[in-house]
């Protein structure tokens, strides 16, 4: 059962140099109590997707079209009051850099209590108790002392624990973790991930885990979406992605995991540089870097190929293989292509939903 439905989300930054289509038609669901992984290299639009859900984009970023529904309630275009009651309450987020994510001039307790008092009717004393309780829950020792300290008095790992405590203080349905361990030491990384898994089991919230670390995906996630240049290029269960990757980009990602090394599978960039989002190619965005690129890849956007109810990829190579195997005919592909073009022609500005 999905609690969050994101459909055909388009978010752009209207810069002086032109429109940067940071998120370009992303759709996914988040199920109750499940962990959804979003993986992709830097600049692929993962953070912007997260910020779009909570509408915390900064100027000149704007949601252009699409739909974000929480428990069936539309958030895109809703009032400021509505989205404020979602933020930190039903959907929380923690960020990449704990060193800069807490306000330096207020105590940890002050910042925790602020979140608690915003969304519950606890008074100051009760909020204080709750703050201490949350610090204890995320494994911070001497919470009574810590609650009165300033962020600069805590280490990076501790600050990320504080961020987690703050995010979970109002018992959200969904926790978005935007590369929560990237800025931390390797040993601290493992501790934070362990903590998140433990809390997820105990509290039962859903997690959107944004990362470029496939090791994190493998250890935590139920479902995975792979993003490239603001688009979902492949989506499936963790098993689908790791054991039968279909998109050439996903295959590249998995191949780049260093085997046999004791280190977690950090992403080694695939040859070539990430795509220039100001000048997207007319065909598949990955085609300039793809070893298997065909002529069609360069000038026609790929269509979606469904392999199972949970697994799809948008890659001409997989379409080609499906035709070879006889799963689809050329006519069907042609038809799909026509309807795809129609959809693209009128959907981005209608705010309509993608036909599933």
């Amino acid at each position, binding site marked *: 059962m999905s609690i969050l439905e994101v459909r055909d989300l388009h978010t752009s930054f209207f810069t002086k140099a032109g429109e940067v289509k940071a998120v370009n038609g992303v759709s996914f669901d988040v199920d109750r109590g499940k962990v959804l992984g979003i993986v992709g290299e830097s600049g692929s639009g993962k953070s912007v997707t997260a910020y779009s859900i*909570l509408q*915390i984009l*900064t100027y000149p970023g704007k949601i252009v079209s699409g739909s974000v529904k929480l428990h069936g309630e539309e958030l895109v275009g809703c009032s*400021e009051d509505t989205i*404020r*009651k*979602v*933020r*930190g*309450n039903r959907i*929380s*987020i923690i*960020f990449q*850099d704990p060193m*800069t*994510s*807490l*306000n*330096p*001039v*207020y105590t940890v307790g002050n910042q925790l209590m*602020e*979140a608690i008092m*915003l*969304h519950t009717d606890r008074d100051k004393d009760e909020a204080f108790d709750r703050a201490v309780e949350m610090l204890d829950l995320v494994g911070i020792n001497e919470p009574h002392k810590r609650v009165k300290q*300033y962020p*600069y008095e805590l280490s990076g790992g501790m600050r990320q624990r504080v*961020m987690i405590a*703050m995010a979970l203080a109002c018992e959200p349905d969904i926790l978005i973790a935007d590369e929560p361990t990237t800025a931390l030491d390797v040993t601290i990384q493992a501790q934070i991930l362990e903590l998140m898994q433990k809390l997820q089991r105990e509290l039962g919230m859903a997690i959107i885990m944004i990362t470029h670390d496939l090791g994190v995906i493998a250890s935590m996630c139920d479902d995975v979406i792979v993003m490239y240049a603001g688009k979902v290029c492949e989506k499936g269960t963790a098993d689908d992605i790791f054991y039968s990757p279909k998109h050439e980009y996903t295959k590249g990602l998995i191949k780049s995991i260093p085997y046999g090394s004791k280190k977690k599978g950090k992403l080694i960039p695939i040859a070539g540089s990430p795509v220039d989002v100001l000048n997207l190619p007319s065909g598949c965005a990955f085609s300039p870097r793809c070893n298997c690129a065909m002529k069609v890849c360069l000038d026609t956007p790929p269509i979606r190929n469904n392999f199972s109810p949970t697994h799809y990829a948008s890659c001409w190579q997989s379409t080609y293989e499906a035709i070879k195997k006889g799963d689809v005919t050329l006519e069907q592909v042609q038809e799909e292509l026509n309807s795809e073009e129609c959809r693209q022609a009128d959907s981005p500005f209608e705010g309509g939903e993608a036909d599933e």
Partner: protein
Amino acid sequence: MGSKLLKYILKRFILMIVTIWLIITITFFVMQATPGGPFNSEKAISEEQMAAMEAKFGLDKPLMQQYGIYLLNVVQLEFGSSIKMRGRTVIEIIGDGFKTSGKIGLIAAVLAIVSGVFFGALAAVNRGRWGDKIIQVLSTAFVATPSFIISTILLLIFCVQWQVFPANGQTAAGLILPIFTLSLYPMAYITRLERSSLLDVLGQDYIRTARAKGVSKKKVLFKHALKNALIPVITYAGPMVAYIVTGSLVVEKIFGVAGLGDKLINGITARDYPVIMGLTIFLAVLIVVATFICDMLYKVVDPRIEFK
């Protein structure tokens, strides 16, 4: 924590005393090195009379002895009497001038900080819009224009042309223009400072955190951003007091305000040593103490400041 703070205050206090001592010493010797004395301009004065006068004020003693006596007196807050204004002690003269100058300076400082922060924040929040552009152009212009030019222009417009204010700063209405002139530069400076620092703060990660918690736009600005953006302004408060103290000398002269500036300039032209010394020390102490207070305030706003 508490003992650390106490140690820091003590250290700063000692440093303050040393600074003041240095100022006293430098002023004393510079004064001695300047050719001419207080009785030079009085024409019909014989050698004998001169010697008698000098003996009366202790000017005939060896230099180091004079210095020693002076230092001893200063420690006892004994600045002596004016040579020129008979029967008036230096303390009286300072108190008299400070009644006016202190008022002008304090109001100018408060005006500069309050409106500087207000306009700076207004510009930052409206970045790129007309309000921001107007504030930026004006604040840059006022930072770049010396106060004696602004004083003269204001004097011409308000006192000569429209005659809304008296050109002589003896009455309360006459103090409005000097206060305004004096606060214009620090106001413009703080406006620019606050604008850029608030813009910087608004782009920080912790502002995004606050928004992501569901904090309202207003509270993000007033609670989370403004306090951080005030830190550079507090750093500037010390230099601002110095500017207002020295700037008031010029501004008071132009607007004819009978304040400390007036007394100091009269003292200098008359070679009235006790008055010059007393005033210089008083103004220096004022600046040093203000800087000390700013440093303390800095810690109140920014907990990250370590006392070393």
